[in-house]
Each structure stands twice: as structure tokens, then as C-alpha cells.
């Protein structure tokens, strides 16, 4: 079972990240997924978050208790949600927007220049797909094939190709990070 929190500021596509992953998991990877999100004023600016539970069995409790993965795309979101990330958990952060301040040994940190990569592809709006690529590679919680299959309907048709490119770019970066950082014998992440 995975408990995942995506966070950033409203407008970065945080809710979309969880939607795409949840759809990929539940329609194409054959597992259960439950997604909840910040709603209302807090989703439109400020620290915004969405939560995703992934399980092999039917999910009852719909929220994260102790997230094993935190994706943080803004400093405010990092400051707010990092303390709640489980010990040994996976932190993926936007390296140009977030300066991690917590104990570097407590969680497994992965730095990702998501916005910069997205701008190289022509638009910073693709940063969330770069992030999802990186997230998929590092966690292995969802397959890349399922993620790509989930995109139609959740990104504009005319930008489908660009979004897939953004995903691949993030995925490649994620694989490199995963293989460079030795897996610690920590407990969180997959096993909760």
C-alpha cells in the first residue's frame, strides 16, 4: 500500500498529478486508488495538496495517515507537509523552488528541476508531467505505460505529445536519481 501526497501551490497541476496517477493505477494497473484533494480557496493559490492511496485491496480510509511519498513543488508546501512525511519516506522536490531544511538523513531526498525541464520543452505548464515521470521512476508505484495511457482526457489533446515528452524527461531523470542514490534500509515508502 502506498500513501502519497502531491503538494505545491494552486495552479501547478498538483490535483492533476494525483488524478492522472489514480486513473493510471485503477484503470490500467489493476489496483485500487482513492484520490482526495484540497478544495476551495486553498486549492487556488497557497499550499495546495492532493492525496492518493494505492492498494491491492479495496480502500476504506481515504486519506494518508503517514505519507510514504511527498512530492513538493513549492517551499510553502514543503514547509507545511515535510514534517508529516514518514521516516525513511521518499521526498521528491522542485530543486529551484524548494530549499529543504529538515534532517537530510530522515527521508530519501530526490531533487528535480521540474520547471526548468518543462521550460526546455516550451512551457512551464508541463512541470507536473515532468514530476510524474520522475515520481513513477523513483517509486515504481505505477507503470510508465499506465501513466501514458491515462493522459488522454486529462491533458488537452493538442498537448498530448508534449506531455508525454515531459513525462519521459522526468522518468529518465528519475531513473538516474534512483540508481545514483543507494536505497537505504529505511522502512517507509512501499511498506506501511
Amino acid at each position: 500500500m502506498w500513501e502519497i501526497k502531491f503538494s505545491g501551490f494552486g495552479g501547478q497541476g498538483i490535483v492533476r498529478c494525483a488524478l492522472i496517477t489514480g486513473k493510471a493505477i485503477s484503470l490500467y494497473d489493476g489496483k485500487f486508488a482513492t484520490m482526495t484533494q484540497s478544495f476551495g480557496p486553498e486549492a487556488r493559490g497557497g499550499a495546495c495538496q492532493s492525496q492518493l492511496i494505492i492498494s491491492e485491496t479495496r480502500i476504506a480510509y481515504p486519506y494518508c495517515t503517514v505519507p510514504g511519498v511527498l512530492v513538493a513543488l513549492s517551499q510553502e508546501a514543503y514547509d507545511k507537509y515535510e514534517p508529516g512525511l514518514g521516516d525513511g519516506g521518499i521526498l521528491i522536490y522542485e530543486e529551484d523552488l524548494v530549499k529543504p531544511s529538515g534532517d537530510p538523513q530522515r527521508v530519501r531526498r530526490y531533487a528535480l528541476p521540474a520547471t526548468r525541464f518543462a521550460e526546455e520543452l516550451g512551457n512551464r505548464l508541463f512541470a507536473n508531467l515532468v514530476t510524474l515521470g520522475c515520481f513513477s521512476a523513483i517509486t515504481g508505484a505505477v507503470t510508465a505505460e499506465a501513466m501514458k495511457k491515462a493522459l488522454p482526457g486529462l491533458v488537452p489533446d493538442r498537448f498530448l505529445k508534449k506531455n508525454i515528452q515531459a513525462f519521459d524527461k522526468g522518468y529518465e531523470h528519475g531513473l538516474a536519481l534512483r540508481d545514483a542514490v543507494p536505497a537505504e534500509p529505511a522502512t517507509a515508502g512501499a511498506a506501511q
Partner: protein
Amino acid sequence: MPARNTVAADPKGVDSGAHFMDGDHALAEGALAAGCRFFAGYPITPSTETAERFAERCPAVGGLFIQMEDEIASATALIGGAWGGQKVMTVTSGPGFSLMMETIGLAATTETPLVIADVQRGGPSTGLPTLTAQQDMMQARWGSHGDYRIIALVPDSPQECFDLAIEAFNLSEIYRVPVFIMTDETVGHMHEKVVIPEAEEIRVVERNWYQGPKGEYRPYRFTGRDVAPMVKAGDGHRFHITGLTHDERGYPALTAEQNDKVVRHLIEKIDSNAESIIRVEEDGIEGADVVVLSYGITSRIAIRAVQEARQAGLKVGVLRLITVWPFCEKKIRELAGKVKAIVVPEINYGQMVLEVERCAAGQCKVVSVNHCGGAVHDPEVILAAIQEAAK
């Protein structure tokens, strides 16, 4: 109530396949699959997505969506739509539900089939627009003045939002009664997999149309068991629809005797069929010392507490209400004689627990785990209540 035939759903309204969808959207899809083709509404958080979905799908399906000036007009338009021959629906949240109450009484006494979903948020008044609650449970039952009955269903997932929307329409047609779907912000905005079957696998109850000669149509029959067939306004039948106490032709009949006849019928048509209307889900009730009774999102939160309690060796059963009104009186009376306690968590100050207490009638402890609006329970609080109740 004579059994009613069902037909396959009209494929135009059925978006078959697997979707990753929130509860609000699933409500709209369920309504469309059930044959609803008229929706009058006024946007209110956290229910607006249902209206948006319905409006978006209308052109392809051949339905009509009207954004009305407020919730009073929305509910009243449903009565017109229903007597115009359509299956009709609206969706709202607490403040809007309050405004609809007068019309709900009109729908009850004119025996107009309609479906209203209340995506509950914290109250009273405008309360907590974006945060969850289950505070309108008694309002659904008692909100309009006078004596009457309604049916209310509570889904615990987006899938059940879809399924129960269809059931709500079917029940509203069978009993010519307003049916409420009492969901909440959490389920409304939660995304999960929703499987929409093929149209031929979805069974819908069509309206029971009057087949007799013109001039002899009677819109009511006060048997307390079944309801009269309906006609479409404008088809040349002469009849009258009023909120006043009426006779079988629908004309005002303002006597104590007639009021007794009408009101008894409104109540007995539901009460005498309660056993076939009521649906609950049970798990581990047999031999349980404590039963946790809950509904909607709270039943999913309670599962975590129940699992922990069972791991600690306690004998805990689960009773989830799918139909909340009519209330499962018989079930609670039987249960109360067999268990030590019934624990009732709900996101309100204690509403359905009052019904549980009434039916348990002192045969067992009834423990309210009340928790006002804004968030789901901490499962530990429910666990502590179970442990205490098991002593």
C-alpha cells in the same frame, strides 16, 4: 406495492466503461443512466460538479438543464418537469436544501417523483462550504412541515453514487415520492474507479403511465399500499395538482377526514413497503458484542477502528445503512436484544443515533460518537468508543 417491471436503460444516457471519477460526477452519470432528462439547479459548493456534468452531457443525451435563480425555484421546476413527463433531479448542499424544504412538502403531498442529492457540508447556515458533514440527516426526514414520508439513501463511494442514483430514480417512480441522496463533501469530491455497465445491464423503472380513457383520469388513490399512474400535463387529461388537502381528482377537499386519508396514505405507502425499500450492509453481526452502525463516508472511517478492535480480540460487527429513511427499525430492535452496545459514529452532533436509541428501547447501550462538521472522525476515537462499549 405490486412489482413494477423494469426495462433496460436508454443507451444514450449511459457512458459505459471504467472511469476514474468523483462522487458528484458519478451522481450525474447515474441520473442520466436512470433516464433523468431534466435538471434544474442552482450552484452551491460542494455539489456544483454534478450540475456541471449534467449540463455538459445534456446536448448529446437530449436532456434539459436550467440554472434557476435559486434553490426554491429549482425544486419547484422539478415538480413542473415531473408532471410534464420527465424524470427530474437537482443537487444542492445544506443552505440550498433548506430553501427547498417547502417544495419538498409540495412534492410529497402531490406524490411527485423527483430526486434531490444533498452533498452535505458543515452547517448550520452557510457553515463550512468546502468541508464535509452529515448534519442534514434529520432535515431530510423532517425538514418540511406536516406529516409525510420520503426515502433517503447514503452512498459511501463514487461507485455507489452512480448505483444509488439509479436506485433513487427507480424508487421515486415506484412510490411517487421524493427520494434524497444524502452524500457528503468527502464522497462528492473523492475520485475512485467507477464502472458504468452496458445499458442493457442497467434496469430502470419507467413511469407508470395512465392507459385509460380521457375524462376518467384520477391522479391519486389513497390505498396506503400503491400509487395511481401518472399522465403528462398537456395530453388532454383534466386533473388538478395542489398543495391543499385533496381528493382523488386532486381537487381541494378541506376536511379533517380527507386530511387523515391523504396523510395516512403518504405514510403507509412507504411504511407498509419499508422492508422491500430498506437496504443495509452487514459484516460480522452474528455473535458480536458491539455493533458499529454508520453510513456514508463515516462507515469507511469506522472500518479502520473495527479492524483494530477485532485484532485486539473484540467481537465487533458492522452495520452500514444504505437506506437511512425509512429507518431499519426491525433490524435494530432484533439487534438490540442480542448485543451489549451499538456504537454510532456520525459527522454531526448525534442525529441517526436518536433513531437507534428509539428502536433499541433500552435493550442495549447506544453510544453516540458525535463529531461536528469539517472533517471525518479520527478512527482512534471510534476505537476508544468500541473498547469502552465492550466492557
